[in-house]
């Protein structure tokens, strides 16, 4: 290997005029042709095109090139392309180096001489590195045919069903007592006005009955170790204090509970009340009760009358106060994250008076109010009276830098239109006003639905509401009608805020658990915004639904199916290639001091006893992610970070200056 003569081919791309107009490509080509080890340097209109790639392959075959430098766009763009190109010509895919002369040169500089000069240096640097590049080996590991799905909203449910139908075992973990998520809380869905519960219940029941799905409700993933194919997962099951096998879901316990009607229902977002022993909603799955340890008198005070009323009432003897929390350990091949979203807290916009006035509701509160399964059985009444004037405020907590959410929540325009429609159906005389900034009716059937709502007489006023104040028993909503350019005040009996979608409050905890990242908006980050929308930076972990960003139900389901299919693809392959750019230890040089072990976040290096009393570090290839922290920590340079070795980078430094 060491004696192999290095022959480098340099290929400078014009990228049409993208590079060529700012960088003198011919000059770059000529300036590097005499560099050591360079045997040919060429330029071409589009290196990434088929003829461009063919040119490289031809040179490799005819001229015996063994290293290739492509000066073109960012390696983040086409490095995989050119790796494949040279692999097709028989070279190791890691023997190519990219000089980024587009994104980091031609596109950011104006002076042609300066840009050309810089491009030459960047190519020199790539040539220097290419001379020292080494072929790398891609190893394979087996993948356990079991998937973990975190979160059982519509995304998690759909992903679980798809994976289970394909014949793989699924563990579906949900932290609430029932599956269903936010979709279960909705009344009707836009734009078709399907009843949310009606279309969801069959799927929920299917999850419960599916032989390949093990449902872990009232549970939380607390530890994730390992790597794709071999994740070691720990799930904490909270005690329900109800025996799941015995409970018949009859509800006698809840009826008997001494706190009946005194605890705020989470499912009804404060619009309704429940007992300490409860089932979140009538069609919950599993249809089993849970005793809320935070409120239950017996569990908090140790005493509930003479004896706990629920226990006395239960005819199935299902109440078990002695239950303890349980830890379940799972060996998992792939993970789908579908943890959903939180609703924007409208008290962050004090000008709207949310939390101050009872008749200012969040979008989700209104859903529960209007739902026939909700606390009022769908009757919309404010202070016992039918509201005459209802105002909807759009973009509450979305597209708003003042609360730190720059993004559009994507569902509020349409859910507001739907909610206005639902009021119109129930109270045809009510005057309905919607304040909006822009209407985003981009989905299938959305624009048609928006028109339908306007046909029904709902008034759309363009302008964001600046404040809501009290006027007697009513509210005064103030805004500017920006189409007229005049201030406008509208009186209302009920204001519904189109509260947006925000990342889960505990998203950081999840990120640390799974070692995945978030985008600037706070949602989980996909591996590529366009081409890898369900993958994460961690192999074998996929994301679906609103945890990745706001989206409506059809998009959520589609993404869940995408995530499921990615997980299934990996599991049906049975094996996966692991990262080739990893650290390796020279056991002869290693002093066994353990500094690499301390530096690694993934537990990849481990000290092994090579001979009695002599410790030597060894890197587990499957665990190593290739960050290189261990190489920095190593005092005696026993660890090399493949593809980013010291001498490779030193040579780049020398070439670049």
């Amino acid at each position, binding site marked *: 290997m060491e004696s192999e003569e290095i022959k480098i081919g340099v290929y400078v791309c014009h990228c049409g005029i993208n590079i060529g107009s700012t960088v003198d490509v011919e000059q770059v080509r000529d300036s590097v042709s005499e560099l050591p080890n360079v045997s040919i340097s060429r330029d071409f209109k589009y290196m990434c095109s088929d003829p461009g790639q063919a040119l490289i392959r031809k040179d490799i075959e005819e001229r015996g090139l063994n290293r290739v430098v492509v000066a073109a766009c960012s390696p983040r763009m086409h490095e995989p392309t050119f790796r494949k190109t040279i692999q097709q010509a028989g070279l190791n895919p890691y023997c190519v180096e990219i000089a980024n002369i587009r994104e980091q040169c031609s596109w950011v500089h104006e002076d042609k001489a300066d840009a050309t000069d810089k491009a030459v240096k960047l190519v020199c640097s790539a040539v220097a590195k290419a001379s020292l590049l080494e072929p790398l080996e891609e190893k394979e590991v087996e993948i356990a045919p079991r998937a973990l799905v975190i979160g059982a909203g519509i995304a998690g449910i759909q992903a679980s069903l798809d994976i289970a139908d394909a014949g793989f075992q699924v563990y579906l973990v949900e932290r609430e007592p029932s599956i269903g998520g936010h979709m279960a809380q909705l009344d009707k869905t836009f734009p078709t006005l399907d009843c949310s519960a009606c279309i969801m219940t069959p799927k929920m029941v299917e999850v419960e009955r599916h032989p390949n799905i093990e449902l872990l409700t009232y549970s939380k993933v607390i530890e994730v170790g390992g790597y794709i194919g071999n994740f070691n997962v720990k799930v904490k099951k909270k005690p329900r204090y109800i025996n799941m096998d015995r409970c018949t879901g009859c509800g006698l316990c809840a009826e008997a509970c001494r706190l009946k009607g005194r605890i705020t229902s989470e499912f009804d977002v404060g619009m309704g009340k429940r007992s300490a022993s409860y089932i979140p909603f009538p069609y919950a799955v599993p249809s089993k009760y849970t005793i809320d340890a935070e409120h239950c008198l017996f569990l908090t005070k140790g005493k509930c009358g003479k004896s706990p009323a629920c226990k006395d009432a239960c005819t199935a003897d299902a109440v078990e106060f002695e239950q303890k929390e349980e830890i379940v350990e799972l060996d998992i091949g792939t993970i789908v994250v579908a943890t959903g979203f939180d609703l924007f807290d409208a008290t962050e916009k004090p000008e709207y008076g949310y939390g101050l006035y009872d008749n200012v509701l969040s979008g989700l509160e209104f859903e529960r109010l209007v739902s026939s399964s909700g606390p009022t059985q769908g009757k919309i009444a404010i202070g016992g009276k039918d509201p005459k004037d209802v105002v909807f405020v759009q973009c509450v907590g979305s597209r708003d830098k003042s609360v730190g959410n720059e993004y559009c929540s994507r569902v509020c325009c349409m859910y507001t239109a739907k909610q206005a429609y639902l009021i119109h159906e129930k109270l045809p005389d009510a005057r309905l006003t919607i304040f909006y900034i822009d209407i985003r009716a981009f989905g299938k059937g959305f624009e048609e639905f928006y028109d339908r709502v306007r046909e029904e007489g709902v008034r759309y006023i363009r302008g964001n509401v600046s404040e809501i104040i009290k006027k007697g028993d009513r509210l005064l909503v103030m805004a500017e009608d920006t189409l007229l350019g005049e201030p406008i005040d509208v009186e209302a009996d009920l204001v519904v805020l189109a509260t947006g979608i925000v990342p889960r409050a505990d998203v950081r905890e999840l990120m640390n658990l799974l070692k995945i990242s978030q985008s600037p908006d706070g949602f989980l980050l996909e591996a590529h915004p366009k081409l890898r929308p369900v993958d994460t930076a961690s192999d074998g972990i996929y994301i679906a639904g609103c945890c990745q960003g706001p989206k409506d139900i059809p998009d959520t389901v589609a993404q869940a199916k995408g995530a499921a299919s990615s997980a299934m693809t990996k599991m049906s392959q049975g094996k996966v290639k692991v990262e080739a750019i990893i650290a390796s230890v020279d*056991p*002869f*040089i*290693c*002093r*066994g*001091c*353990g*500094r690499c072990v301390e530096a690694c976040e993934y537990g990849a290096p481990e000290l092994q006893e090579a001979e009695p009393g*002599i410790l*030597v570090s060894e890197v587990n290839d499957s665990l190593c992610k290739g960050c290189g922290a261990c190489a*920095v920590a190593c*005092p*005696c*340079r*026993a660890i090399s970070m493949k593809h980013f070795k*010291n001498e490779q980078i030193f040579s780049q430094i020398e070439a670049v200056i």
Partner: protein
Amino acid sequence: MSLEEIIKDTKAYYCLGCGVCTSSCPVARVIPSFSPRLLVEKALFGFGDEIISDKDLWSCLICGRCASRCPSGVDYLNFVREMRMEALSKGKEGLLAHDGILNTIMELQSLNLKQDRNFWITDDLEVADAGEYFYFVGCLPYFDLVFGEGGLCDVGIRSIERARNTVRILNKIGIKPVVSNNERCCGHDLLWNGDLEGFKRLAELNLKTIKESGAKKVICVCPEGYVTLKRDYPRFLGEQDIEVIQLCQILADELREGKLKFLENASVDYKKVTFHDPCSLGRIAEIYEEPREIISSIPGIELVEMERNRVDAVCCGTSGWVNCSGCSKKIQTERLKEAEETGADALITACPKCEIHLNCAKYNADLKIRIKDITDLVAESLA
């Protein structure tokens, strides 16, 4: 330099092939393929290219154990140095520990940069810009950032305290030394790693700085700095009108004259200690007894000897920040165990590098013995 010249220059042709060198060599004990004898014999047979391509050329510790025992007087150290010069000129170098940062620090000092190396001087220390004595601080400020607490490779030492203690001791005996911001690395490691030109650049800058301060006497604490200034500066840059002294020599003189007084029961922490002879201080400079006199005269301390001491002492395992490896650690671990076997509760050394290397070997290892520098020990015990 041709191979013939090297052979001539180092009297390698006298080699008898007896093998005393190899069997004396601490490296050869842990790297069986490494043999001083074979290196010299390869040269005699004209296999110069093979020598300079051999990465083990950089494993030699320049400890001088082989040379001190060679019956033919082969100048083995300079043989290695000159072979390394040849290797370097062919673009070959050893495996630099710490990613080469220490070597780069040395090389950067030959640039015309305005250092800020005197940050350690506190108000209680009396130093001067000009005067009779020049205290050559050496690498201590840099070592502190690399190996000190929170440093890049923390081995739990405070090198800079050494510099402060040295000034404290000198102040105590009435010396207000010159400490200069323009002092450079002495060049020892560059010289012995084969970079003669780099060494000369540093040496010239140092001589200029010393002369500008008007000093006639240079006090070194680091044994490598001492031998470099005393022996190598005149050798490569001609005779200099300065006297180079190692701190132990001054202290031993003061002791003999009764001018240095220790506290009654000065040492509480250390009862029984052993002294590790740094190669440069011992075999090279032949200062064996002064440190022992000093340690023995501290009330409350008993000095015991390791099996291998004075001229037979074993190197701390790494030299010139090159080719540090598991083998170096074996040498270090063996030396520390040898010290532990004496029953001593601390190993005393007199070289900042020995201190670093031996402490490094203790990192995450089951070795109890403490490592203490003689200067610190003296400063803490002074009346």
